[in-house]
């Protein structure tokens, strides 16, 4: 049964990847067959992973073995199955969305390749998560990175895409570098690439952990390694952004959790503190940077950084409570972290997909040029709103439940013994609260500026509702967001966990019940008259007098001016000599890019400098290189002679 499923899945995936490249017709039929095949393949896999997830069993599958350690082996246990299910759910919705989205893209060529790469990307993510040994993990990890790199490059004619793609590929290679180092250390401890428990020797374990944390952290977009996200996500087409932001960075989270659970199951306390600190920093700075963004996709990318931060806070709590021997709380923390991973995958892809429809309809990514879209695009607006409510962690949706689980662990801080840890956790909890409130503020801004009020540009006022497939895809995710929130308690019980989380089903019944009662009571209570907005006699028609997105975030920029360091420049020209009547003027405000200016730029300079020196060695003459090789071998021989 399992074999047939895997067999069919492989065939479907194979067709979905190869077909669009082989058939070079530009008509949509090949792409559609390919996407349908990918969907069928996902469904075949969904069956297996659901069964593993519910029965808490594990299954292994040997695909191919080449030489001793070099083999492709899959292992699907509960953790893998959970991530595979997450990938399947989001990918299915993205595939449905792409059905029409890809056809609407303005580019003439490359659509076939893009579809093929997208399917490859999805398959490689699933295989990474299911890898049984580190070699196949690394190989598939690279496949995932490279296929997504080409997808980021889809719009290669645009200038910004080039920079985004380069930034992405360099950061992702850096991440792989740390991973290779970490995995080699795992190998050297027992001459095996199997993902397995390390023997207990503390210093090596810490090094492995740090290297893996750096490697996965870069890929997940943990601050300060986050800079590639806000470049790469807006550059890619929206369906790809949804996959990258919703899923790919979660694969990095999977890696981190796998290392913590399987390879190093007895974590040290200070690792937890480290993870917690990075998580808190990412969460709060991610949302603070998101607030200043007006490019909708970049705004969402910063929110991914924020949510990765929240996931890491959960992981940090897990390690801290685990190392302090509070197993139940530790388990709750990691469950909250995992649940938030799933939830973020869902609502972030929902937001990316719906904003993709908006960007397509208005032909701009700048939310300042949108406005009033709720009238022309009601379905998209409603779906975006569900995403916004979920990501703002408002009950009864899924984002709330996972944040609640993390808060619950924070509220049990008093069981810890160390006063330092208590104070640290309290501080972190406060910052988490700030983060989630700022996220709500940011999504009020985003939804308000995009969908409410008066259209601010021609494109916005003539926008058309998205095609059916571009509504059905996100709608599936939106329904899941609601269901996972409302029935969270029941779902956890089915899986065999009894967490002290509120039964959101009752809360939802009360909420919906009171809404209905008041609606019915007051339905006929009074008349409703439609009239224009009160605007002190000043016409609203063109949207120029509306509150803008930058106006909306202005109080927050002022409050957090220490972080933003806003620079205001304004020049005024006057009609009269005594400088009273302004004829025209120019004003601009720029905010500091701290990490770019103070972290990335110096590193770049240093690399530039050293490569300037090493470039002199590369004269381009063959005889010179032979001398290098000779000198190098000589040095090695002498060194070996000295050492032995």
């Amino acid at each position, binding site marked *: 049964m399992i074999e047939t499923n895997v067999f069919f899945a492989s065939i479907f995936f194979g067709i979905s990847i190869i077909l669009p490249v082989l058939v070079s017709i530009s008509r949509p039929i090949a792409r559609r067959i390919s996407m349908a095949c990918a969907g069928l393949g996902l469904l075949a896999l969904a069956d297996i992973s659901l069964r593993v997830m519910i029965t808490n069993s594990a299954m292994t599958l040997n695909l191919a073995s080449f030489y001793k350690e070099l083999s492709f082996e899959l292992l699907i246990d509960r953790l893998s199955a959970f991530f595979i299910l997450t990938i399947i759910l989001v990918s299915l919705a993205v595939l449905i969305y792409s059905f029409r989205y890809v056809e609407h893209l303005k580019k003439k060529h490359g659509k076939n390749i893009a579809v093929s790469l997208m399917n490859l990307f999805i398959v490689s993510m699933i295989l990474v998560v299911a890898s049984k040994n580190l070699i196949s993990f690394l190989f598939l990890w690279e496949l995932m990175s490279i296929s997504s790199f080409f997808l980021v490059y889809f719009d290669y004619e645009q200038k910004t895409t080039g920079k985004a793609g380069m930034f992405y590929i360099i950061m992702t290679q850096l991440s792989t570098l740390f991973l290779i180092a970490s995995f080699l250390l795992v190998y050297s401890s027992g001459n095996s690439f199997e993902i397995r428990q390390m023997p207990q020797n503390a210093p090596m374990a810490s090094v492995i952990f740090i290297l893996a944390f750096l490697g996965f952290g870069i890929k997940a977009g943990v601050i300060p390694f986050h800079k590639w996200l806000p470049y790469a996500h807006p550059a890619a087409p929206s369906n790809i952004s949804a996959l990258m932001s919703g899923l790919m960075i979660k694969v990095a989270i999977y890696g981190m959790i796998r290392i913590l659970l399987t390879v190093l199951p007895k974590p040290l306390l200070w690792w937890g503190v480290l993870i917690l600190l990075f998580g808190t920093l990412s969460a709060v700075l991610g949302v603070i940077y998101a607030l200043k963004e007006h490019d909708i996709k970049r705004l969402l990318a910063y929110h991914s950084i924020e949510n990765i931060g929240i996931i890491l806070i959960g992981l940090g709590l897990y390690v801290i409570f685990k190392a302090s021997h509070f197993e139940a709380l530790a388990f709750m923390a990691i469950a909250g972290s995992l649940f938030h991973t799933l939830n973020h995958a869902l609502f972030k892809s929902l937001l990316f997909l719906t904003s993709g429809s908006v960007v397509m309809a208005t032909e701009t990514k700048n939310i300042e040029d949108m406005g009033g879209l709720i009238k022309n695009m009601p379905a998209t607006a409603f779906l975006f709103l569900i995403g916004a409510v979920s990501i703002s962690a408002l*009950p009864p949706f899924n984002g709330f439940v996972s944040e609640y689980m993390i808060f619950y662990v924070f509220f049990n801080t008093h069981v810890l013994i160390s006063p330092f840890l208590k104070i640290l956790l309290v501080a972190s909890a406060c910052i988490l609260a700030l983060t989630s*409130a700022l996220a709500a503020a940011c999504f009020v801004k985003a939804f308000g500026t995009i969908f409410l009020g008066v259209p601010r540009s021609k494109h916005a006022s003539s926008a058309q509702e998205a095609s059916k497939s571009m509504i059905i895809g996100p709608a599936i995710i939106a329904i899941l967001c609601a269901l996972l929130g409302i029935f969270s308690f029941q779902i956890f019980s089915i899986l065999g966990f009894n967490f002290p989380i509120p039964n959101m089903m009752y809360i939802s019944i009360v909420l919906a019940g009171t*809404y209905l009662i008041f609606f019915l009571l007051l339905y006929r209570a009074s*008349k*409703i008259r439609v009239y224009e*907005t009160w605007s002190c006699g000043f016409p609203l028609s063109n949207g120029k007098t509306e509150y803008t997105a930058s106006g909306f975030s202005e109080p927050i920029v002022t409050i957090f001016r220490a972080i933003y360091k806003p620079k205001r420049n304004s020049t005024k020209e006057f009609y009269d000599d005594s400088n009273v009547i302004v004829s025209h003027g120019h004003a601009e405000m720029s905010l500091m890019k701290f990490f770019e200016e103070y972290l990335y730029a110096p590193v770049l300079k240093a690399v530039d400098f050293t490569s300037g020196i090493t470039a002199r060695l590369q004269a381009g003459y063959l005889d010179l290189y032979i001398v290098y090789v000779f000198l190098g071998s000589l040095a090695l021989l002498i060194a070996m002679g000295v050492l032995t």
Partner: protein
Amino acid sequence: MNELLIYSVLNILAVILISPFFMGVIKKIKAWCQGREGQPLLQQYYNLIKLLRKESVVSSTSSWITRATPYVNVAALITAALFVPVLFVPSGSTLFGNLILMLYLLALAKFFMALAGLDAGSTFGGMGSSREMAFSAILEPVIIIIFLALAFMFKTPNLFEIFRQASAVGILYAKPLLILLMVSLFIVLIAETSRVPVDNPETHLELTMIHEGMVLEQSGKYLGMMELSHAMKQTLLMAVLINILVPIGFSTALSFYSIAISFAAFMAKGTALAAVIGIFESSIAKLRLFRLPVMFMVAFFLAFLTIILEVYG
């Protein structure tokens, strides 16, 4: 289960019915402070009934968000009312009483209120929403740290359990640190209910307004529902403060007499607190907008101090 049902109905009804009264008391006290006679104590009830019957004018720019928001607000606040017992605590229930969930229900109401502020496209609404979201964001850590401090002191994050422990005699004597915490909670109460140093509930002047800006476009039954939910939010926060600080008369059992006593006691204490709020509002000037974080920091500091003393003490 039966007891829980009685509790739910009683608590929700009590909060809905009491809330406008406290609003009226504050208005009355403020009027007295200004040397005016002031409106009758029950005027708020008449206002509400009038508003709920009156014709609503809805902006032609606005969408269903404006019309759904008042219902969402009332629904969220009524659900939140289940989490703060005002009359008695039902025994052995963990379904409600969850502080974090209550906080996020209030956030749900606020989220929609801010959206409705932006819906009509008016500058006033936008200004109100923007300020509300900014200042409630920096107030959020203050609220969480107060709740964390409560969890530290009472070893539970459940409000029912906290109230039960608090009503054991001599809580203030045993935990004098609570006074510090309640000062923070008072500041939160002032800020969350848009009262004077933070906001001015009386004016529609764009320089001062936060909350009023957001509901400027609401009218008729919609405005009535917004005002009702605002009053309910005030009662809930007052109840947290009262039932922890002075739990005298608060009932932990379900019986007619104890609930009657509890109701009378709550009304008396609530009226006293409302009077304090009224006097506080009258004796202080509105703070400059960007001075508000300083005030919130005071509340934050006091709560943090409580935790530090609790951890090291």
